[in-house]
């Protein structure tokens, strides 16, 4: 398969993630859409690594994986603490910065 086939699949999944972030208002699903975008980028990294015959792309995937894990941990902790104080996690209702 040519490289561009993998990159187009990656572009489609990335776009679905973008649409999810724009449309949904449940913050958990917004987080899942961000995961979709990160994974789409990972797919293009692995495709480039395979086609350039170099291991550097796989290193980037490894780092992205770690960053995604850290981001999910902190983000879910923030959502849980928002839920504790406000009993509601709709993102349209979160329009003040005061506690």
């Amino acid at each position: 398969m040519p490289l561009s086939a993998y990159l187009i699949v990656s572009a489609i999944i990335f776009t679905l993630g973008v649409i999810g972030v724009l449309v949904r208002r449940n913050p958990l699903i917004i987080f899942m859409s961000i995961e979709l975008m990160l994974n789409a980028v990972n797919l293009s990294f692995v495709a480039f690594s395979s086609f350039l015959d170099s291991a550097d792309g796989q290193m980037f995937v490894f780092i992205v994986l770690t960053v995604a894990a850290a981001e999910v941990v902190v983000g879910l902790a923030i959502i849980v603490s928002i839920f504790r104080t406000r009993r509601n996690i709709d993102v349209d209702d979160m329009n003040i910065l005061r506690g």
Partner: protein
Amino acid sequence: MTAIQISFFVLAVASTVSAIGVIIFRNAVHSALSLILTLLFLALFYLQLGAMFIAIVQILIYAGAIMVLFLFVVTMLASEASDNEPPDRIPWQRGIAAALGFILVGALSYLLFTGQTLDNGAKASGANSLSHVVSTQGNIEAFGQALFHGFTFPFEVTSLLIIVAILGAMVLGRRT
């Protein structure tokens, strides 16, 4: 069509459909399960591309650890944050988002088809190439060599990032 083309198209359709499932399911648990399916299909893509270690790590870390964390939080908040979303405050948001998404995927595909192709000078060759190291030493050995010969500092910084994330989660999760 060869077997690799058939498997590519099956995987492409399956991963796209399950990614659509993530953003259209009303229930957050269904979205999470659909995301797990997408991650497994992407792991199969990595296997097809010859990145076996990344495929296994994808299944263990992403589909295993991260998604379990997600499902715990979803079930913890599910009683309140149920699937009855109130009516949208910005009614044209969906249409605009879909139109912008089509523009984005169209522009990316156009650029991918018309842009410059990779020349062979960019490819690694000889003893440096990934396929050479994999064939002489093995897949995980090739990954480890690349990680600890060129990317030692980013790897160490990663541990700092994890410490910061653990501390952040502890501070945020503490009852005040």
